[in-house]
Structures are given as structure tokens and as C-alpha cells.
């Protein structure tokens, strides 16, 4: 009797722990169309990625991806509602269907992609760990950091990456750990350490907090891979495709020179078959995605191409002033590459 009871409990626990993923064949798009908006999970506040401006409008690169999805599905980028999620609740929110898309600076890893019933649809931002140093010490490359004292936030993977990097390059360092990222900034400013290490996207935000940002530079080296991308539930390929191709459409648009300003005109006048296919002037490529013919046109018109989105939120058009770097298009030395629409 006792054994039976134990088995029962074990089964219940297993069902909970395994999060018992039911099959959701093609239901998300129908549900989204029915309720009339895309429910999108974003961060509870990360400079440049998702934050709210003075008017209470959501802004940021993660937010724009969701607007893009809404533009593709409804032809109206404003038909999206945002759920701010903490790092801990984000995956549950996708698994339980509370949000349709999770666009929350989430690193694409094998365990998350394969082990949690989630699917990453692409990479919105290639992030990676970098170094912020004072210009006073005259270092131009991370390879010259032998013997440096490094400010670091404790309990993060950045600590492990740092150890690996210095060991691989036969260098020594003194770690100075703090609990909060704001404390590391203060420490760097006070000269308690020579270098601050964190994800590159964070370093630029931290640099603004320094008294005189111009006295500090972000070194070019990136020592870890942190591809950030949107996440959907596993098992609904139809919805997965829509989210994936939203991003691809933005990257393709940049490659083809289409911007929010010229896209409508180009849709009418362009003779370039790639442009015509992407914007729905030729062929029925929207149909394959179960979307309207002009899905990509609406994305670019209302949200912009990838480059516009990047510059506006984190690039030169923003306070962060992050260089394109790895996030440049593939044909100018970056990693952003999208398969063609045809």
C-alpha cells in the first residue's frame, strides 16, 4: 500500500517536474487571431532591450520584435500586449501559454532549446562577455590585461568565463566580486579595479552610469557566446515559423536596402525580384506562413528593418551607442544572416 502511494506521488512529481508538455498543434495563431493581440513576454527592465519611456510606452529591441510579430499577424504593430517577466518566471510563462512569444534577452542554449519544451526562433542580438576599462591604463586589447584586478558580479556565468579566458591565455588576475552590478560600476569609478567585465550589452549601459563615460572604453574582445533570441513553445511549428520569419524579414529588408521610409514606394516600383517577393508584389509567400501577402511590408513599414531597430534602441540613435560589431549583416562582416524569401 505504502509502495503504491509512493509511486503515485512520484508520478505526480514527475508530471509536474517534466511540465507535461501537451501537443499544441497549430493552435497559437488561431488563439492569437481570436483574442486580437499578441501577448508578449518582455524583461522587467533592461536598458535598450525593454524599458518604458516617460509616456509609459514600451521601448527596446526585444519590444520591437514583438511589435514586428503583431505587424505580421494583424498588419498592425500596436496589437500587442506586454507582460513584464522576471528571469525566473519567464519560461513558465511560455510553457503555460500565458505569453505567446517570449522576447526577453534570453540566451539560446542547448538545454533551454531541447530540454524545456521551448524553441528559439532566431537571434535578435549576438551578445557576449566583454571588458570595460579606463582609458588611463592605456590598454587596447584584452590580451594586455595580465595581472589586472577585475570587478565582477558574483554568482554569474561571467565569473566562470573570465577564469577560463585568463587561464587559456596564460594570464593572471585578481577578482573583486560584488553582489550588484551597480556596485561594480562604483568600484571601477573609484579605481578599486582596472577592468569591469559583464555582457557587452550591459557594459554600454554601465558606462553611461559612470561620472565621465568618455574616460572608459569597451575593449573589442568578446570572450563568450550569448546569442539572445525570441522563444516560443515547442510543438507549434506554424507559430514558430511566423516568429522566426518576422526577424528574417527584418534582416532581409536591411540587406535589400528597404527602410520604414521607402518600403511602400519600393513595393510598388522596385524591379528587384528579391524585393518583390519579400514585399508580396510577386508570389504568395505570405500564404505559406498563413499570413497576409504584405506581412513583411507591414513589419518594415511599422517597425523598420533590423538595422533601424538596432540603431534606434541600442545603437548610435540611442544613449547606449553600441557598435554593430557581430550584429552587422553577414555581407559586412557580421553574423546577421537571413535565408531568402522565395
Amino acid at each position: 500500500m505504502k509502495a503504491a502511494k509512493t509511486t503515485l506521488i512520484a508520478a505526480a512529481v514527475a508530471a509536474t517536474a517534466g511540465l507535461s508538455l501537451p501537443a499544441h498543434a497549430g493552435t497559437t495563431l488561431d488563439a492569437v487571431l481570436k483574442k486580437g493581440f499578441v501577448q508578449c513576454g518582455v524583461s522587467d527592465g533592461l536598458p535598450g532591450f525593454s524599458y518604458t519611456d516617460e509616456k509609459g510606452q514600451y521601448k527596446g529591441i526585444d519590444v520591437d520584435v514583438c511589435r514586428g510579430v503583431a505587424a505580421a499577424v494583424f498588419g498592425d504593430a500596436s496589437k500587442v500586449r506586454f507582460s513584464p517577466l522576471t528571469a525566473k518566471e519567464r519560461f513558465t510563462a511560455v510553457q503555460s501559454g500565458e505569453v505567446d512569444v517570449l522576447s526577453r534577452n534570453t540566451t539560446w542554449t542547448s538545454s533551454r532549446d531541447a530540454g524545456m519544451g521551448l524553441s528559439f526562433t532566431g537571434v535578435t542580438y549576438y551578445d557576449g562577455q566583454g571588458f570595460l576599462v579606463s582609458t588611463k591604463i592605456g590598454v587596447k586589447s584584452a590580451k594586455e590585461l595580465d595581472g589586472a584586478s577585475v570587478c565582477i558580479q558574483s554568482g554569474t556565468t561571467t565569473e566562470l568565463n573570465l577564469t577560463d579566458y585568463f587561464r587559456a591565455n596564460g594570464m593572471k588576475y585578481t577578482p573583486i566580486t560584488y553582489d550588484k552590478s551597480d556596485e561594480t560600476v562604483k568600484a571601477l569609478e573609484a579605481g578599486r579595479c582596472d577592468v569591469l567585465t559583464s555582457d557587452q550589452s550591459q557594459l554600454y549601459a554601465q558606462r553611461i552610469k559612470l561620472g565621465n563615460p568618455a574616460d572608459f572604453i569597451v575593449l573589442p574582445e568578446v570572450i563568450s557566446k550569448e546569442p539572445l533570441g525570441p522563444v516560443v513553445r515547442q510543438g507549434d511549428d506554424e507559430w514558430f515559423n511566423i516568429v522566426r520569419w518576422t526577424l528574417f524579414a527584418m534582416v532581409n529588408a536591411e540587406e535589400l536596402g528597404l527602410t520604414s521610409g521607402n518600403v511602400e514606394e519600393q513595393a510598388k516600383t522596385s524591379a528587384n525580384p528579391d524585393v518583390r517577393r519579400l514585399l508580396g508584389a510577386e508570389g504568395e509567400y505570405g500564404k505559406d506562413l498563413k499570413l497576409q501577402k504584405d506581412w513583411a511590408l507591414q513589419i518594415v513599414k511599422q517597425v523598420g528593418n533590423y538595422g533601424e531597430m538596432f540603431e534606434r534602441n541600442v545603437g548610435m540613435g540611442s544613449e547606449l551607442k553600441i557598435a554593430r560589431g557581430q550584429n552587422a549583416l553577414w555581407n559586412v562582416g557580421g553574423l546577421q544572416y537571413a535565408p531568402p524569401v522565395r
Partner: protein
Amino acid sequence: MTTHTFKPSLPPPPMSVGPAAWIRANLFSNWFNSLLTFLAIYLIWILIPPVIKWAFIDADWNGTSRDACTSGGACWVFIKVRFSQFMYGFYPEHLRWRVDLTVLLAIAGSIPLFLKAMPKKLPYGLAFGLIYPIVAWVLLFGGMFGLAEVQTSQWGGLMLTLVIATVGIGGAMPLGILLALGRRSHMPAVRVICVTFIEFWRGVPLITVLFMSSVMLPLFLPEQMSFDKLLRALIAVMLFEAAYIAEVVRGGLQAIPKGQYEAAGAMGLGYWRMMGLVILPQALKLVIPGIVNTFIALFKDTSLVIIIGLFDLFNSIHQATVDPAWLGYATEGYVFAALVFWIFCFGMSRYSMHIERKLDRGHKR
């Protein structure tokens, strides 16, 4: 005939009256106290002037962007620009009058309760307590009587903090009293249920309760069925605080001598009338400090809803500090949050002292 006139009395020695005497008696009565005084003066000297310099003298007050903050002190422009967001969250700007009206109604409706001459206070109070929440809900959420619907995800700022705190307080108080009575009941089933409830909710941290409500609960519910996040938080806070209130009230019940119960029984009062007319009025009066203490703790605990991504006052401020346009002004934001929380908590504590004095009957020391 000579009239005798008294000489005017001499003034007391200068060191025994006036400020000098006070200083001597209170600050320099022996070498150890003198040492402490100097230490305190030194601490004030090194701490206060920089704070004043930062917060007032060097502060920037005017402007609309971070470019206005050049003098090196506090940048109150940041608070000014974001102020309405700190108060209302994302509540649509053209509908904010509804929030104001809700607050005004609360104030106007509770004025009669403070008037001495008001007759039939109890029925009025009960009616107000039952009707007001419904009116407030209709006003804030809308969706009926031609009012546009405002999703709870758009609620935020101080408004959300107050909603959580008032619902928590309003719900926890009656529930807590019932639980306290239940725990002292002679009926085993009622007692066991109440004890289990109280011990369960007191045994887990609020943060865990909130976390469970937002992370585990959705997994057990069927697909696409999602409870409102705010509702989950409200229920969690209410049940949690009810358990604490129950124990505070039980302390009061235990302080009432057995003779009071017996006397009430001898008068022929049944259980509910005995409790309502004799025991509870005395017991609750005794535990006012404990109850208010719990409420102040609850008010401050509301900021824990940051765990489940609700934008209360604290989280709204945190959110504003990550706007790239205002990075680096977190200190100003947190100082502002502290000030607002302090005003409310201090208000509650003064009010409780007032009530204690007003209701004091014969226990005065």
C-alpha cells in the same frame, strides 16, 4: 512708617536653568556621556552637510532631460519627469481622472466616520465597506457603464501599491478575526482548519507565496486559462496577512479575563453577540499597536510584487532607472521611494496612536 520691601530674589545660578542646564544635564552629565555627545556631533557634522549639499544646494530641479543635470548634486528632474508614472503606472493618461475620483471618493466617504456627531456610524461604515470596493473596481477597471476597460497590467505606481495595501488590509482584517476566533473555538474541526491555515501561511515567506502564485499555479491550470496576475497577488497577500492578523487578535483575546466571558454568558448572550458586543471590542482595542504594526509591514511588503513583474511604486521607479535616457540616477529614484513609503507608514503610525488615545478606557497608565 516704613514699608518693608523684600529684595527681589536672585536669579538662579546660570548653570541650573535654561538651555545651559539642559545641555549639562542631558548631554554632559559625566565623562562617558560627554564622549558620546562629541561622537554624535562629529557624526552629524560629517554626514548631514554632504546630504543637504547633495539633495538641495547642488541639486537640479528644472529641465526635462538629463542634460539639465550638470551641477553634480541630486537630479530631481528625473523624478519630476517621471512623477505621473510613479503615481499611476501605465494607466492611460486621459483616464487618470478615474483614479483621482476613486481616491477622492475614499476620502469623502470616510469623512463621516471621523465625525463625532455622526449617528449610526456602524451601519454606515459597513455599507461603505461593502459598496466602496465595487465602485472602486468599476471606476478603476471599467468595462461597464460606458467606461473604457483598463487592464490590470496597466495599473501601476503608487496607485497599485495602494490597491494592494488596501485590499490586503481590508480583506485580512475580517478574515484574521474569524481565524482567531476559530482557533480558540471548542469545535475540533473548526479549530484544526484554522490552526492549519494559520500555521501554513505563517510558515512560508510572502515571496514564496507570490512566486508560487505566478510560476507554479499557471502550470496546474488548463491551457489558455490565465488568472489575472494582480488578482493572484491580491489573494496571496490577503491570505498571508490574515494569518498574521489572526495571531495578533488571538493575543488580544487571551488577554481578556475569563470573567468577561462568564459575565456575558450570564447575561444570556449567545456566542456571536458575546464576541461582538463584549469580547472583541475589548480585545481589538488592546492589540491596536500589533495590528497597525502588521499593516505597516504589509504596506512595505507590497513592493515584493516586483517578483511577479507587477509595477508597484518601487518597481515603477526601478523601471524608470533602466531607461537609457536616465541611466545612473537610481539613487534619486530610491530616495524618492523611501520618502513616499515613509510618509505613508508614519501617517499610519500616528493615526494608530490617535485611535489608541481615543479608545483608551481605564487602562491608562
